[in-house]
């Protein structure tokens, strides 16, 4: 081989089995063929037909590589409320307790973020390599070696010291052998909704989401089982978190839940058509967005956004004008339903609700709201009076801070689906002097490799730079065969584990915003790494990690001398509005 290359074996999906991942330390237990045999005797795994799995990912292989058995002692936390989970659990023995109410965060071991200390941060000044994308050969070619704990989404092994005192007065539920938990967060790319801990000594089978996805895809037993759980557990939690249902007793809440319908609008894999849709005219794009509720129709119920995004628009002369966007946890139609219940004069829906990309919604019929919710609602909890649109006041109230942003910018943010970002990089072009201090800071904190491009779509004086937005709905995570791209459970950034990334490029292709780059690692002398069998260069996915390990937070925003750059959660409308009106 030539001198300027190093041949190694291309990393494969199951190079790092699930049992080798994470910071289990002494608790790490190898997943053996004997363990797989044991699992295959337990329903629903015993009922799954291995023939439904392709030769490349056999059923036994999934169990051997995508699952691990973990032992928990009494009080050990299995999942924590608020963590982004990449795995689900199946109870093999013992039992766990689900805390249905919020616990004090310090009690469940949520610690301050782990970042570089001052001296290791300073050392970047002289330690950064001169070559781009430098990796050590030892790390890159270490197939089968355990992944360092600091790289992975560490599982929680926090211990609740005095269980009885901590959960005193809190609503709990017990789960027993044969039951799943954590599947909603694992499959929905959402945070855990409850804290679950071992009620007594128990043995849990943890399944990483790639494996769970395979099982659900190939087995109707697992699929039905999970969907049944999803309906019964997720629905009640969601309703309980919605302000208008908060005051309901368990009985009434159960009746509301029973009458609630699940609705799904748009494409689940919306990112696949994103670029094609972007080329259409505004009117054509709007026509492609499925209408969930139409302005002028009778308000037959309220819609609660479970996941995804919705556009709220109103008729404006010959077209539709976007006035707001809704995300997870927000509702539509309650004002109209409440108005009609209180007044003789009946009004229809005042706005149109459309799915932007994909939208999972809950629909609660008007009759149920009128029967169980409105009669028990206290005066301050009623929505503001609904003034028919002609008066123009509803727009004022609904838009709130968004009104400050301006209709063109709002249309732009919704059209391009930048509302998905939790750390969207906005650049004020009227203040940006193009000095590139942001790029230099990014490079300095990433071993001389800038992780974003100061370029991107522009609306007025605002540019959305090509930097990972750490999306609320991170479609880049769909399909990653090894789970290298994951949500950090502590800081909630979307991160790439460089060691388990096999360079397949799925995440880069899936990111509709083009914010993930495929890079070619090399050693300190600049030699590229090549696959020793196919002789093609090794690739890795790279993107903004929001400076997860830096003490300053995002270096780009920290380094901008002109207040031109903002990393913002698009749900934070106050900050957004203030920034647009400085």
């Amino acid at each position: 081989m030539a001198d300027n290359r190093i041949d190694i074996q291309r990393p494969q999906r199951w190079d790092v089995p699930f049992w080798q991942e994470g910071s289990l330390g002494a608790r790490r237990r190898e997943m053996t063929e004997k363990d797989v045999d044991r699992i295959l005797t337990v329903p629903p795994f015993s009922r799954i037909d291995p023939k439904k799995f392709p030769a490349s990912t056999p059923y036994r292989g999934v169990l051997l590589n995508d699952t691990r058995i973990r032992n928990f002692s009494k009080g050990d936390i299995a999942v924590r409320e608020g963590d982004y989970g990449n795995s689900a659990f199946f109870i093999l023995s013992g039992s766990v307790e689900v805390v249905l109410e919020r616990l004090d965060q310090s009690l469940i071991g949520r610690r301050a973020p782990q970042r570089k200390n001052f001296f290791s941060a300073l050392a970047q000044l002289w330690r950064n390599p001169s070559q781009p994308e430098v990796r050590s050969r030892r790390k890159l070619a270490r197939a089968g070696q355990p992944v360092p704990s600091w790289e992975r989404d560490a599982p929680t092994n926090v211990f609740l010291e005095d269980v009885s005192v901590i959960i005193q007065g809190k609503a709990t539920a017990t789960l027993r052998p044969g039951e799943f938990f954590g599947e909603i967060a694992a499959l929905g790319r959402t945070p855990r909704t409850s804290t679950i801990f071992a009620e007594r000594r128990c043995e849990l089978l943890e399944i990483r989401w790639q494996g769970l996805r395979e099982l659900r895809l190939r087995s109707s037993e697992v699929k039905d089982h999970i969907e049944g759980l999803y309906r019964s557990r997720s629905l009640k939690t969601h309703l309980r978190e919605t302000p208008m249902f908060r005051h309901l007793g368990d009985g009434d809440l159960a009746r509301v839940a029973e009458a609630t319908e699940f609705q799904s609008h748009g494409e689940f894999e919306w990112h696949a058509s994103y670029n094609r849709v972007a080329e259409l005219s505004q009117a054509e794009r709007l026509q492609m967005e499925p209408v969930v509720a139409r302005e002028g129709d009778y308000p037959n119920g309220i819609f609660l956004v479970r996941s995804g995004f919705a556009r709220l628009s109103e008729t404006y002369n010959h077209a539709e004008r976007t006035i707001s966007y809704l995300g997870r946890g927000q509702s539509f139609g309650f004002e109209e339903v409440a108005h009609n219940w209180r007044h003789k004069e009946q009004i229809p829906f005042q706005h149109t609700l459309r799915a932007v990309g994909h939208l999972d919604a809950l629909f609660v019929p008007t009759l149920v709201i009128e029967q169980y919710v409105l009669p028990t609602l206290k005066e301050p909890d009623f929505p503001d009076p609904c003034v028919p649109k002609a008066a123009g006041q509803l727009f004022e109230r609904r838009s709130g801070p968004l009104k400050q942003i301006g209709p063109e910018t709002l249309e732009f943010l919704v059209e391009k689906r930048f509302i998905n970002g939790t750390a969207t990089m906005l650049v004020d072009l009227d203040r940006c002097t193009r000095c590139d201090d942001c790029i230099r800071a990014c490079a300095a904190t990433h071993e001389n490799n800038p992780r974003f491009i100061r370029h991107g779509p522009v609306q007025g004086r605002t540019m959305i730079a090509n930097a990972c937005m750490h999306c609320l709905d991170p479609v880049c995570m769909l399909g990653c065969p090894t789970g290298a791209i994951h949500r950090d459970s502590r800081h909630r950034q979307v991160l790439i584990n460089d060691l388990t990334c096999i360079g397949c490029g799925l995440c880069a292709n899936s990111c509709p915003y083009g914010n993930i780059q495929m890079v070619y690692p090399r050693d300190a002398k600049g030699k590229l790494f090549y696959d020793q069998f196919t002789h093609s260069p090794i690739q890795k996915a790279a993107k903004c990690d929001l400076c997860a390990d830096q003490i300053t937070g995002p270096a780009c925003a920290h380094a901008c001398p002109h207040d031109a750059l903002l990393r913002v959660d698009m749900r934070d409308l106050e900050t957004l509005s203030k920034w647009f009106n400085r």
Partner: protein
Amino acid sequence: MRAFVFRRLLGLVLLVSLSVCCCWLDFSLATSLRPAARVSGISLLALLVMLALFNARKKLPFLPLLKASAWMQFHIYAGWFAMVLFLIHIGFKLPRGALEVTLAILFLCVTFSGLFGLAISRWSPARLTLHGEGLIYERIPALRAGLRREVEELVLGSVAATNSSTIADFYQAKLRAYFERPRYLWSHVLGYSKPLHQLLSELEALDRYLNAEERKTMTQLAELVRAKDNLDFQRAVQGMLKGWLFVHIPLTYALLLFAAVHGIVAWGFT
């Protein structure tokens, strides 16, 4: 009140208050026969060092040394304050002696280059945004080469397709040099758009010699001329935004050096 307006007002009030206090202190020291010049000189030197540290801060983005925008605000108002201190230090009189004159000239050069930088930092970004497609400075040479190739292909294609040399002759006479290298940079810096309009009107004047096919080519050519104009504009204005620091920073180091020498000399002979 908008955040920036509030910040400016606050900065201004602090600057004026501090300046008045310093004038009063200097007057008090001078009337009580204390070394007022030494106090103002040391303060000024310390302030200059602090101002110069902003550049060092930029090299250490990974350290928690406050946000660069906070440093920038300090740099702006402390820069104004340094001017007040300088005037107090020289007693509102012209300096005498080679070292003092050099030092004063250096100080004024640094101050005015800073003020120039501040002014263009506030005005130029909006000009860049309004002018056309935003471009990354480092990519401009490659984009220019691409445009030039495109124009040449268009012109050669036109000759082959129409058997007419009108466009090719005009290209040789006017456009070749225009697309070859950055042009009219000073016009762009000063916001003077006559060269573009002149070129476009010369293009329009050719219209009477063209057939329908050539007119299509000419329309495309006019678009490419505008694209090149945007490239030149972006290069000129972005270059100015980057370039002024190459004056401001070296002069700052020279000023610090001379100020230190001046301090040692003044200390030694007092």
